[in-house]
């Protein structure tokens, strides 16, 4: 259905446009002046100044694998994150924890865990879906590399970024 928009009636000085143009130019020159004399300050000089200390708790940087207080890699290779990841950045090859291991009860671990940071869109769905509180989006955001291979974070790299996560549920305790 067509909608008729009623146009405002302009008087002659408005129709001349010149006052409006002058007003506009006054506004822009004001911004120019304020900026020139340093009265407005909005731009952060990125590599020298960083936002890191202001980063909010919920910041979504590079996804990373974490260990818990007992030193266990929390991921059990359930591959839910691989499934949920919208750009399919995650690739996991599961493995079986050998019988004698300290964490043999967990049975399964990620033999390989790669996140292709060229693909990752920092959506955080992997963190959200993980049933083991094993993957978190950390505050690292400057992910760079010279080759495509550089940009694939393998398990070691992910654990290095992730570090230790305290206060998570320890459901694989012998008691539980």
């Amino acid at each position, binding site marked *: 259905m067509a909608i008729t928009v009623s146009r405002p009636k302009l008087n002659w000085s408005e129709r001349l446009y010149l006052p409006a143009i002058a007003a506009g130019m006054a506004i822009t020159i004001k911004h120019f002046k304020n900026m020139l004399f340093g009265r407005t300050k909005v731009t952060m000089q990125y590599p020298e100044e960083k936002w890191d200390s202001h980063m909010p708790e919920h910041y979504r940087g590079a996804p990373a694998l974490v260990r818990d207080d007992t030193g266990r890699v929390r991921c059990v290779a359930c591959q839910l994150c691989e499934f949920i990841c919208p750009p399919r950045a995650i690739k996991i090859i599961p493995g079986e924890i050998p019988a004698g291991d300290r964490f043999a009860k967990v049975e399964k671990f990620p033999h390989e865990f790669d996140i292709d940071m060229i693909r990752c869109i920092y959506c955080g769905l992997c963190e959200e879906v993980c049933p083991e509180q094993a993957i978190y989006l950390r505050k690292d955001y400057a992910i760079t590399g010279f080759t495509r291979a550089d940009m694939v974070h393998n398990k070691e790299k992910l654990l290095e970024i992730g570090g230790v996560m305290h206060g998570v549920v320890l459901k694989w305790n012998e008691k*539980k």
Partner: protein
Amino acid sequence: MLVEHEQEHDYETLMADPATSAQLVNVQINGVWHQFPKGTRLIEACEQAGSYIPRYCYHKKLTSPGNCRMCLIEMGLPKMGPDRKPELGEDGKPVINWMPRPQISCAQDVSEGLGVRTDSPLAQECRKGVMEFLLINHPLDCPICDQAGECRLQEFSVEYGNAESRFLENKVKKPKNIELGPRVTLDDERCILCSRCIRFCQEIAHDDVLGFIDRGSHSVLTAHPGKRLENNYSLNTVDICPVGALTSSDFRFQMRVWFLKETKSFCTSCATGCNTIIGTRQDAIYRQTPRENNAVNSSWMCDYGRLNFGYLQSDKRLLQPEILSGDKLIAAEWNVAITHAAVQLKHFSGWEIAILASGRMTNEELWLTSRLAKILGVELIDIVPRQGPGDDILLSTDRNPNMNGAQILGVTRWPGARLRDITDGIISGRVKALVALGENPIEIGLTFAQLQALPAFVVMNLLEDESISAATAVLPSFGFAEKRGSMINGKGRLQRLNRSVRGPGEARDDWEILRDLIQAYSGQNSETDSRPGGIHSIEDVFRQMSESFPQFAGLSLSKIGDLGVQIFGTEATR
């Protein structure tokens, strides 16, 4: 079988019709009257009527012990008047006397005038309660449990269970990660004691190895002392286990089931041709599971066939066509290799050439092979019989999946009868060229030296074996999961293979190789009597084949369907 379920029947007219009432009984399901044949299990009847009842212990191919209590429903029988006739209500239908307590639906057959409520508040309450009990001691294993994604416990928990547990005590600890047999791993904490696996071993595999020990919440599944679950059907227990208690040691931790692409196919490891689902991801096969086909394999398959796919992804696969140049095999383009083979064969007349075909080839390939034989003028053609121990469950002694196809299509009349002539001919030097299609001539008694002495030895195969280095042309082909085609099983049922993965390297579909070889030899894309159309797809092969063989008349690959077509013999229903 369900006769009517959409329509509501007038009870009086149904009762008055003796013809229908002889085999059919009237059952009221959730207020609607349906008719079912006598002897139908109530749980099945409700499912056919569109009200699925959750179940754990019930399996339609096994007996019903009724021990999981998941299938509880409300049930009632018609109220009988003093004249032993059902009392009719105001709507002219029998009044149902509802039983005060819920009943299990899996151990009950339908009977005349039976009333069922599958979704009443009582039934819902019962399911909720059963779910809560089942989960009391169940571990939080889903992230590492292979069943996750196809787990009944997960599914019914979502549909009928509670979100939270009220259980405060410690869970009962049970043994985990036990090797129950060479191919099956048991996790007792996950077992819900449904006894499906026990009944399968007793009733289907006839190998009574499993049982429960201990009492109450400490009950566990275990193998009888001194026994292991190692019969050739053990992996079926993994399929029917509704939870992740029994897992396949082969598939364990390999891939989550939700990634698997499922392709309907059938097993080519023996003449039975059990129907299967092939689970693949990104061109890798992870597992085969049986698919129900009551004319072939019921719901089962043997472990031997199930696990017999690893060779498709072995590093022995031939990936590149090769031709003999000087005294070495060198990689070649396809057209070069085909032409090379054709030119070599042209040096000899038909009686100097032998063809060794295979009972593992599809009908389409065998038909093209017989065309090739005709064009070459070859008389000396046979397939290699393959025998192995069988049983009276599924596994056949004939380990070739398509011996019937080879016979129907006239590749051989008595399989193996001419193998002698072939070996003798080669040893005596009368036969100068050998075409081996999917078979290793060393296995029929030839030696490597004898093969090497042949002026022309064309091999089409998928795996590298000892004979390959004696070949003058190597044509790498596809395995059963990589191609489409049809085979006829030992009982005369025509079944269809579907492609589930792409072939590796430069290997090619067998029918294409044979078609190209025929074309390179004769210059015609078809057969000698220059039928119009030519062959451009596997459907074309089937069409031309069905024109010459009445057994295939009116069929096409798509008409074969997922369950196959009986083309001779009788349909044996298990």
